[in-house]
């Protein structure tokens, strides 16, 4: 087993990185993979809450880096899904506690024990982002279909391209088909046109997400959650499966364009 290390990042805060990491990790574990989710948001940790594991934290990532415990001791095993683990962040420290080199050393230790390491990046472009990016083999950029989020995602893509980790793959989160149809929200095509990177998933706006994050039960465990379904599909695409995008509007033309965007392979804009 040599793990694939993915970082989920966005630039902008609040677009759904933590939700995506929690759900993708759970979905991959559901598909039989050994997965560890790593929270790199030191000082503002949330992944533990969203995964429902916060009251089982004894040691965290900073303890491991500073040598107060063994890596194994800091990993929390999810009791609902075998194969799913969490390495939580510290809440009482901040992002200066850990360096990019520390993160690489840490994930090197994890690599041989897992199929996937999913790193939850903090918002921003500073140290926390650099920490999360350093060990990554692949990057998932998550954004919302709104101008400010897309602006930040574009910045992030520029930064990861400059590091040689580009172009990354795109998840558009919290899309509201009714608003798109009314012309009040950016379409998937609008977003992909600016960002010009391959699209790996579209997740609809879904009330059940708020319930799931509050309760600490990832939405992929809920058969009736559309967002959960979307995340499960992304997990399958990560494994190389061709999964058609969920119909967001009844229009077949729209779906055809999405398929082309996802599987066509080409990007425009001279990137």
């Amino acid at each position, binding site marked *: 087993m040599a793990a694939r290390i993915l970082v989920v990042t966005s630039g902008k805060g609040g677009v759904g990185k933590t939700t995506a990491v929690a759900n993708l990790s759970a979905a991959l574990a559901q598909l039989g993979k050994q997965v560890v989710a790593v929270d790199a948001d030191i000082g503002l940790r949330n992944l533990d809450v969203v995964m429902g594991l916060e009251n089982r934290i004894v040691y965290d990532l900073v303890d491991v880096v500073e040598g107060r415990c063994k890596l194994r001791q800091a990993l929390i095993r999810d009791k609902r899904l075998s194969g799913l683990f969490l390495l939580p962040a510290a809440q009482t420290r901040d992002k200066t506690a850990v360096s990019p080199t520390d993160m690489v050393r840490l994930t090197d230790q994890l690599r041989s024990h897992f199929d996937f390491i999913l790193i939850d990046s903090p918002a921003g472009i500073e140290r926390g982002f650099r920490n999360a990016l350093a060990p990554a083999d692949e990057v998932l950029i998550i954004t919302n279909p709104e101008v400010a989020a897309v602006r*930040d995602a574009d910045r992030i893509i520029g930064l990861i391209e400059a590091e040689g980790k580009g172009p990354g793959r795109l998840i558009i989160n919290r899309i509201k088909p009714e608003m798109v149809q009314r012309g009040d929200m950016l379409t998937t095509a609008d977003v992909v046109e600016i960002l010009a990177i391959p699209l790996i998933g579209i997740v609809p706006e879904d009330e059940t997400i708020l319930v799931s994050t509050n309760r600490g039960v990832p939405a992929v465990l809920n058969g009736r959650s559309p967002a959960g379904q979307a995340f499960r599909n992304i997990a399958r695409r990560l494994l190389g499966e061709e999964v058609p995008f969920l119909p967001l509007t009844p229009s077949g033309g729209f779906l055809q364009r999405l398929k082309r965007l996802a599987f066509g392979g080409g990007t425009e804009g001279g990137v």
Partner: protein
Amino acid sequence: MSEAVTIKGIREGLLVTLTEAGPWTAVLAELEQRLTANPAFFKGGRVILEVGDRPLDEAAIRQVRDLLVRHDVLLLALHGRDEGTVAASRALGLTQEISSASSGSRFPPSPEEAVQETGLVIQRTLRSGQRIEYPGHIIILGDVNPGAEIVAGGHVIVWGRLQGTVHAGAGGNERAVVCALDLAPTQLRIGSYITRSPEERRREPQPEMAMVQDGQIVATPWAHHEFSKAAR
């Protein structure tokens, strides 16, 4: 009444131009008059002196500097074309540079006729947060996303969609142009002129060239354009 002393506000402070004609003492007297007439205006101010061809020795420069200091005004630089003046002011520790007036640019001001003929070609899309600065022309084969910045001493030509901020003729050349297949920048500057895209941009994108005409920036679509206007 002919003005021996003209005062103009510029980005760096006050540009005080002293006539080349007449005796130095008369010029100083008039300058003193202006300073005492409106002390509040000058107090704490910074002055760049322009003396043109007038030859000045160290003593003369010291006189004007002390005069200014007495009125609480800092002499930032003294600019003169006479070699003796330049040498004397340098000896007193004054700089000669007046940075380019209102554009506050980082490139030396270039006369309109001598636009640098070198160009930089970039064959990718510029993303938000990326900035390209070059004293000659800049050509982008790709898009310029919102949040990206281009600053060129010469023209800016974007073979793609221009949505970031762009400054052509950044050294003061107001004959520079900005061209794009889809001209929709957040902000567009040519020389010291500035403008932004009009609000309604839902129509089909078409190639346009922006240039300064009659004191403002005008964008004309390719089909209607006469290139000879821009080519000079």
